[in-house]
């Protein structure tokens, strides 16, 4: 069968012993004289590739050639030329692409971090058109259930949404993944993709209020989560005045500072906010002062300078970044 790549080692009959291949003379790999990065090929792999070269150069568009590409892909799914030839074969033999989809699924189950698999999958989906929508969304979901940050799977999923549709349940899918792992940056990115690009949600402006609520809650649960803080900032894209004066953002920061733990991003966000929000506020002064006393650093009458000094102390690996932030403060000049 064309798609069978799960041949057990012991059951495999070498191609040279198979009657259906007896008329083909295999062509060995020509690595040239003393190759730079000489490769030693396993015997089985070499044989399959020798026969592959024979059918490839003869441009043999047959079903046995298709079966051979499946064997070659099973041994090494990263070879562009084999996939390339397989697509030519699929086209010329008019193979049912639903079957091909199953083949890709089996290959992906063994090695899903391979560009060619995804490119091939997209090629198949593109040919099948809108009817492929659900199967593609399901396929990526399955991969993401094993590795929720799988870059290729996310990329494919975004392509499906934009080209075949299926936006309706995407926001709740993102919520589902974030409920499983609130630190999943890929899911946050997908969420941003959905709220800014989904044709059914009305865009960033329409979504801002509810998304701020969602994000604030996520941050309160895990204030050390870089992704959620960046998402919050992203909700105010091109609206920095709105952001630096937003009471929800400043009170979120205050709330976290008062817990005296995992406050790094809260402090850094505070630096972004408008001086008119922070400076005159007694609560902020007290919270920062408490942190200052906790880590025992020098007092400064300016609250923003103190914030930078705290960050220099608690995030020493990036001390130069915080020193630079301090130097940029208008009051430091």
């Amino acid at each position, binding site marked *: 069968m064309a798609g069978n790549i799960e041949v057990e080692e012991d059951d495999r009959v070498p191609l040279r012993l198979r009657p259906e291949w007896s008329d083909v003379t295999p062509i060995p790999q020509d690595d040239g004289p003393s190759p*730079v*990065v000489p490769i030693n090929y*396993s015997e089985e792999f070499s044989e399959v590739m020798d026969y592959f070269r024979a059918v490839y150069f003869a441009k043999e568009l047959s079903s046995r050639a298709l079966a051979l590409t499946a064997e070659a892909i099973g041994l090494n799914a990263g070879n562009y030329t084999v996939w390339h030839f397989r697509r030519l074969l699929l086209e010329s033999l008019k193979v049912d692409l639903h079957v091909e989809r199953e083949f890709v699924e089996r290959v992906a189950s063994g090695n899903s971090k391979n560009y060619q698999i995804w490119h091939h999958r997209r090629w198949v989906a593109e040919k099948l058109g809108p009817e492929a929508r659900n199967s593609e969304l399901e396929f990526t979901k399955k991969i993401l259930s094993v590795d929720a940050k799988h870059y290729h799977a996310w990329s494919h999923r975004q392509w499906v949404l934009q080209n075949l549709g299926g936006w309706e349940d995407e926001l709740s899918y993102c919520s589902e993944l974030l409920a499983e792992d609130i630190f999943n940056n890929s899911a946050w990115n997908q969420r941003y993709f959905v709220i800014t690009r989904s044709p059914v949600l009305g865009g960033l402006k329409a979504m801002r209020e509810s998304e701020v609520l969602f994000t604030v809650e996520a941050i309160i649960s895990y204030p050390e989560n870089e992704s959620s803080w960046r998402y919050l*900032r992203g909700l105010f894209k091109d609206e920095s005045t709105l952001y630096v004066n937003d009471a929800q953002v400043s009170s979120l920061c205050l709330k976290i500072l008062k817990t005296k733990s995992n406050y790094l991003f809260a402090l850094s966000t505070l630096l972004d906010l408008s001086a008119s929000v922070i400076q005159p506020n007694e609560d902020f002064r007290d919270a920062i002062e408490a942190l200052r006393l906790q880590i025992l650093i020098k007092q400064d009458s300016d609250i923003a300078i103190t914030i930078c000094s705290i960050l220099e102390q608690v995030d020493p*690996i990036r001390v130069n970044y915080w020193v630079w932030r301090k130097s940029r403060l208008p009051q430091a000049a």
Partner: protein
Amino acid sequence: MGDLAAEKHVRYILSVEKKKDSFESVVMEHLRMNGAYWGLTALDILGKLHVVDVDEVVSWIISCQHESGGFGGNVEHDPHILYTLSAVQVLALFNKLDVIDVDRVTGYIVSLQNEDGSFSGDIWGEVDTRFSYIAICCLSILRRLDRINVEKAVKYIISCKNMDGGFGCTPGGESHAGQIFCCVGALAITGSLDLIDKDLLGWWLCERQVKSGGLNGRPEKDPDVCYSWWVLSSLIMIDRVHWISKEKLIKFILDCQDTENGGISDRPDDAVDVFHTYFGVAGLSLLEYPGLKPIDPAYALPVDVVNQIFFSK
């Protein structure tokens, strides 16, 4: 930590062929061109490129060129833009760019630019900002950048910029240090770095450094030596490299060495490979580790090689 086991790494790179039937050798066959670039560039940075037979390498590279002008990953493989850049880079290492028909290679790359300014990787049309970088870097080395629509190419890259300051593979794709290197590199080569929010991107990049000193490629992911290249080179191009701790990163890379048999791995105590050996050595070069040739962060070639390209007649 010890020092850089430079001699052992040289021996490791030269001895990859002795590992019979290794998994690595089977999966490397089709991307031998990339392997040649990683191995040879690492050798050059270590000051040992002269031990390689130039003519053999060059004739093998020429034999990988397809009639379309592009290069395959090995002899008789289909051309792809990925291997085309590696082929051009290796030829540049040996100052042998004159052996190829530059206009044919240029024609191949030009044919891969799409209407929206993006680039496909081959005739099958996969689009990715990696390919934008490759096209721009390659044409710049060949001094034929004027043959593509640079303005549109830059516009496409900028459309892949995210709210965190980073870049993804296509518009809306998650920021990833590897993609960021490609986008920043392409913008650097085309003189378009002013389109980046350097402070925002710089902060995102320096947040990639974790406690062990290593760098990861995305939030909450494990550190990996290959990001020493991707994150560091990007930070250098946007002039923010002092925002991370260089000492800690050097220690992390050195901890990933196989001090007995040579080679560098992704993380301490993992198996070494040529890919990570190159990225480790290149990363240390960017960190100005003593005894290494300086490498150019945008072209990913030794600085003297880049100078030779641009300051020769």
